[in-house]
């Protein structure tokens, strides 16, 4: 095969360009730290990477939802704790007033305190978080309990998504907690009614009526306790979900990094190989192009 000047020149140019192209690719990889910088580099892995990224983003959203849900449930829990304390105090008074050793003055004092305690229950029932009444169900922009203790909210669950397709209610129905269902007393103990009954009994001076309310007070306290444990269980569930979420995020990040990230050792060593090759190619080309017949003709 004849070799002409042009052949040699083309060959030199070509080889240098090939080396430069490889160098540039490696430099791009080392500066971005990613093997893939465009969908065309690796279409199959591109789809995988995009899917993993969207899973990561979804996980972040679930974490946000869990945080918001936890604060709502924590608020509910503390309100219920308060109610439990109120009921304990009410029981003390009721027990004290359930024998005949009290006079009119102490009965009046007891009535006043019981009314204050009833208002306390109503205030706790109207607990707010960020301007929303947490026991009001869907009607949570107005206080669910009116001054007489009647419930005007709804008992719908406010669900949030804590994992794909998994929903958890983050509220507790106020009527179930305080009024024993709607209508009042239908599925539990009507706490407001207990207080009303106690006040009436004390005003009438009937200790037997007061004694009759004692078991109701007990069931009221267990109702509130049951509600608290329900909320507590949900909070545990959120905690667990949050941990699972964190672990998932870690694994996804690892998988993503395996697919996408560049092995720096490999890239740097390849880069220096290419640089050596480039220098060798340039030196060789210079040698080839130097000598022609012209140098030897007089």
């Amino acid at each position, binding site marked *: *095969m*004849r*070799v*002409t*000047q*042009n*052949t040699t020149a*083309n*060959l030199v140019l*070509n080889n240098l360009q090939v080396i430069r192209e490889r160098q540039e690719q490696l430099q791009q990889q080392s500066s971005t730290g*990613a093997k*893939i*910088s*465009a*969908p*065309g*580099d*690796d*279409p*199959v892995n*591109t*789809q995988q*990477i*995009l*899917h993993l*990224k*969207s899973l990561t*983003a*979804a996980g972040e*959203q679930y974490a*946000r*939802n869990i945080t*918001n*849900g936890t604060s709502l449930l924590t608020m509910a829990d503390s309100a219920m704790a308060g109610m439990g304390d109120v009921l304990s105090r009410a029981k003390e008074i009721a027990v004290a007033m359930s024998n005949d050793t009290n006079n009119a003055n102490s009965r009046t004092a007891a009535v006043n305190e019981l009314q204050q305690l009833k208002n306390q229950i109503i205030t706790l029932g109207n607990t707010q978080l*960020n301007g*929303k009444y947490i026991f*009001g*169900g*869907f*009607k*949570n*922009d107005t206080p669910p309990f009116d001054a007489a203790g009647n419930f005007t*909210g*709804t008992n*719908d669950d*406010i*669900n*949030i*998504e804590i994992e*794909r*397709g998994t*929903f958890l209610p*983050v509220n507790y129905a106020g009527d179930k907690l305080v009024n024993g269902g709607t209508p009042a007393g239908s599925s539990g103990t009507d706490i407001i009614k207990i207080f009303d009954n106690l006040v009436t009994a004390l005003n009438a001076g009937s200790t037997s009526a007061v004694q009759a309310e004692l078991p109701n007070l007990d069931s009221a306290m267990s109702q509130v306790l049951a509600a608290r444990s329900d909320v507590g269980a949900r909070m545990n569930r959120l905690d667990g979900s949050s941990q699972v979420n964190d672990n998932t995020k870690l694994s996804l990040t690892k998988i993503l990094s395996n697919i996408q990230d560049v092995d720096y050792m490999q890239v740097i060593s390849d880069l220096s190989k290419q640089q050596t090759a480039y220098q060798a190619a340039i030196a060789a080309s210079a040698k080839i192009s130097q000598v*022609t*017949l*012209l140098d030897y*003709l007089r």
Partner: protein
Amino acid sequence: MSINSLLETGRTALNAQKLALEVTGENITNVNTTGYSRQTTILETAPTTLERGFPLGSGVKVAAVQRSYDGFLQTQIMGQNATYGQGKTSNSALQRVQQLFNEFTTDGLGVSLQNFFKSWQDLTVNPQGAPERQAVLSQGQQLVDNFHRINSNLNDVKSDMNKSLEGQVSDINDTLNQIATLNLQIKQIEVQSGPANEMRDKRDLLLRQLSQKVGISFVEQPDGMVDVSLTSGQSLVVGKDAAALSLLPNAANSGFYDILLTPPGGGPAVNATAFIGGPGNTQGEIGGALLVRDTMVNNYLSELDELASTLASEVNGLHSAGYGLTAASTGLDFFTPPAAVAGYSGQGGIGVNIAAISDVAAADADPTVNGTGNNKNAQSIASVYDKFLAMSAGNVTLEGFYDSLVGKVGVGVQNAGRAESQSDGILKQLNNMRESASGVSLDEELANLIKYQKAYEGAAKLINVGSEMLDTVINLVK
């Protein structure tokens, strides 16, 4: 044998070697000319005559000045050039398209889609919250803007390809005219004297340049003229007549150009758009431009439209069944309802249909009756992101459909890049072979220079001797 014939022989030698030197000089000076094929002088003995009973030659003469030309290589190079031209054009257009879908360097449509549904998730936790509602509207607007941006950029690629046809068509017309002119000149010269080597080189170069723009084949006629035609058979050059290409906007194709071919020698113009790019628009830069403009980008646009309209229909269906913060804010579509799927992702299509944040339908029942804290509709809309919908790629989620669209673009770019570099490699190889067969090697020409120069000296010496002999003879008789 007379002394004159000695001088005659010397003279023929001088002429022949001088011509050979000129040809070598031509080769040396044209060592870097593109498309030049080296020429060789073929010397042969002049006719023999009977001299004193012995047949003796009468010197040397130039039989021909031959050009090294490989017709087979020329055909191969032209074919590969067409593939290369198509690959180069479609690859550069696809690189632009890839940038639109490159989720690695910027946050594109995929992230925008995620953020939109994330804002609905935030709304479920606080349905009456003004910032959450505002976020839903803003994310919706960003999503719409992203659709518009990608759509208009894709359409830009199409119109740029369309515009490039203008330059290419005028280049091709120019080249065809030059080839026809050269045809005539070559024929005239070769009728009178020997092969018109330089002009043939020029014509071959023009043919190779033309083959990069459009796939062609050629046939050489006995009179030296070359007939050029498209690979599908239509004539481009017949003898001294060249065809002419022209462009006509086609209203049925959004005003993009149709390519018309007027046959050589006149005649009615034929619509060549269907075949000028070769089978399936695989040949020539014109084929590449037409492929990108009429097929590739349209595929991506229609998938984008499908994504936008499926998203809008799903969200609208749930949204219009839901309620905002007032009893009257129901029956409202979140996105502009799609009138047709085609073109929906563009400016006149998808848009956010709601302006007031109180109209965002988070509730699934009348809030004035059932409470404004109702987040059930917001929940259902947020779940659309994970919902498997029946789309053209099968039962996939919106995110899965978008990912597969990005994957398709990636595969297209990868294929185009591979095709271009592969045909580039083959082309370089073929050009090297052509260079090896027809290229000028300075070493060889310099050696020839010495050869012919020495022969010239030898012939001059012969004449010298002949002239001295003549002197001697003349001085014989005083």
